[in-house]
């Protein structure tokens, strides 16, 4: 009677252990599943938006590669045109490094990232044109073209507070003087 009674009480205990084990296994499975999906998501974000996957070659660029890329973009800026609307492709006058930097710079403002990226691209173009215009190596004809282009971009630069009004006035005066002098 005593033994029989012990057997009777053992049966439900085994059942409880079994159910507990199933729950633990299920929880572990779910945890692993969630963990994998979380890691996948993180990996996807890095791959999709970070520079390492999109531009894996950037880290391998030598100093000379970088220099050449920057110089090529600077040359392209002399004739480059401002962008409008959503910028989906890297303009030629924006180097790969600069493109990554600008895209990352607007990540803090998702609400108007497209407009900001376009503004930054145009701002970069303006300053590259300005550097070229100020360079003694630039030919007179190119300087004239650059002066005209920059004059046309000045309203954008002042309107966006990219350049202060005083500096804009001084620059406008210098650009006009150059055009008057040469023409």
């Amino acid at each position, binding site marked *: 009677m005593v033994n029989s009674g012990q057997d009777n009480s053992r049966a439900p205990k085994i059942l409880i252990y079994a159910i507990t084990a199933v729950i633990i296994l299920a929880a572990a499975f779910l945890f692993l599943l969630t963990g994998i999906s979380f890691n996948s998501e993180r990996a996807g974000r890095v791959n999709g938006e970070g520079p390492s996957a999109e531009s894996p070659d950037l880290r391998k660029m030598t100093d000379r590669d970088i220099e050449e890329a920057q110089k090529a973009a600077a040359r392209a800026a002399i004739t480059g045109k401002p962008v409008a609307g959503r910028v989906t492709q890297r303009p030629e006058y924006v180097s790969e490094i600069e493109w*990554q930097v600008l895209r990352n710079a607007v990540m803090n403002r998702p609400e108007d990232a497209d407009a900001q990226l376009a503004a930054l691209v145009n701002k970069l173009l303006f*300053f590259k044109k300005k550097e070229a215009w100020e360079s003694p190596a630039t030919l007179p004809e190119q300087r004239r073209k650059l002066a005209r282009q920059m004059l046309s971009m000045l309203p954008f630069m002042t309107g966006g507070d990219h350049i202060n009004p005083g500096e804009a006035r001084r620059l406008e005066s210098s650009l006009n003087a150059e055009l008057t002098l040469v023409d």
Partner: protein
Amino acid sequence: MKRYSHRNRFMYLPIAPVVLAALFMASIMIFLGCDVNDSGSSSGSSLLAALSNDQETSTPDVPAGRDDTGFYTPPSSLPAGRHGDIIKYQEAQVTIAGAPDFKAWNVMYYSTDALGAPNIVTGTVLVPKKSWSIFSSRPIIAYAVGTHGLCHACAPSAQLAAGTDYENENLAQALGRNYAVVVTDNPGYTIDAVPTYMSGKAQGHALLDIVTAASKIPSACLSARAKVAIWGYSQGGQTAAWAGELQPGYAPGLRLVGVAAGGVPADFFEVAPYLDGKNGSAFLLETVIGLWSQYPEGIPLNDLVNAEGQAAVNRGLSMCVFEALFEFMNTPLSKYVKGNQTLDQLMAIPSVYETLDAQTLGRNPIGVPVYLYHGTSDEFIELEQCLKLKEKYCALGVTASFTVFAGEHITTQFQASPYVLDWLEDRFDGKTAAGTCGSANPRPASTANAPEGDFIVTLNKWSLNAAVHLKTLMQRVTMPDTSTFSADCNMTTKKITGNMSVPDFKAPINVILPMQVKMIITGVGANPMTGDVTLDNAGNLHVHGHMMADIKIQSITAVGILPIGTWVHTKEPVDFPIDFDGPISSLGSGKLTFTGTTTFPSMTGNVLFNALFTTLMSGSGQKFEFTVSPPAPAQW
């Protein structure tokens, strides 16, 4: 018998809830305690008075004064009374920026002048609306003001009503700790009276008596057995120390727990020469007038002054402190005296000598701990004579400590406030005060600018808490904690020159991955900051200038893809406009904040990346915030 008993039990049953309800209501009333409120009445005050042993004095039947500008006129028929009794009082409208909600009363009360004669003094009582603990009475700070000026419009109560009192910052902090604060105007601001400025005993009496008077305003809910601490600076430091010395004999019923006295003119024979013909000469002229008012025989003003002196006295009587400070700056007393007698000659006149000698502190012990403090660059009140005061108190067995602040006279008043209030809080909490009579620290030495010539307020390597918000990157760059700001504010020429020192620091810039850049911000030229500085008659400081700085950045981590070591810097200096308009107290209280927007010019230095960094950094609308706060004090 059994039935009868039952009936009795039922008879008493309804009484139980009534008793319980009564007890509950009593508990509520006790819990509410005696709080000031908008109606001016006190909730539960009578119950507290009945239940609490703390409320020892009964409230006399004193008239509330009429709510008009004639408050400073004593009634034609004065009620009988002794010092500390109220003559009249009225609710007052007082504006203190930064203070919690509080109620205010103007009070006119009896006191005693320096010669022992009864006098009439006015003042202000400030009580926070926030409840105090039910287990004790709200502590009271007897606040002794610094020089306000001899003109009646300069009376602290008038300045408080106008919201223009230059000591508002200190009062706000005291009220912020939920203490009641009582502020005597000092004797001489009633109609037709002349302030007895710098008459130590009279001021001490007036300060002690306003505490007693305040406890007699029924709706102020202040107990005559509340713990009381005394706090004052400059003239107020003198008042505080005198009140401390006088209290055991004059107001033994006050539960005094501590005295904090800063910038104390303790020995007039040393203070006067430090003022005469120097930056602070206005205070000496006002002292002569004030002591003459109290001791007409000791200071025979009419016999001593020449015509120019008489005119100066009249002007002095019509001015508040800051106007007088500049009006009489660097003018020797001899200019106003017949025969152009020097200060030494004047002080040698026996009656003058006796009068000045009667103001000397440190001859009587103070029965509670004393916190003395002083600015090492004090240009008005000499440091050394105050160090000697500490030694005198120590010799008399007083538990005294001395704290020195790296500031001049005006700034120190506000630099010290948080430290003073912490110390007072410890006294209210019953903690044992640690004196510094046995301090082994070196004796502080004055670092004051020359007290004659231009009046220059120097800030030497004060803490600079600075941040710039980069507009394009939407990033806040905070400069290192060890950044400092130094400036000379020449109040005579109204010019400020200064510099900032920002150690090279690293800042994360989120342009690629979080990229570390090294930033160097350096002022341009010998005086990167230049501008105008003025102190107006209401005690407001005005600073308008520019800080010119170069900004240099270098990428220093390999996390980003920009080449390590790329240096760029601003093509021209960044012009940070420096603008401040606010109370002079901001200079010492750590609230001297310059905020604004500036334009970052183009970046240059690396032909390959100039355009990129210019794109990211330059442009207008870059916000900045610079806050200047004083260095920590030292103990002696």
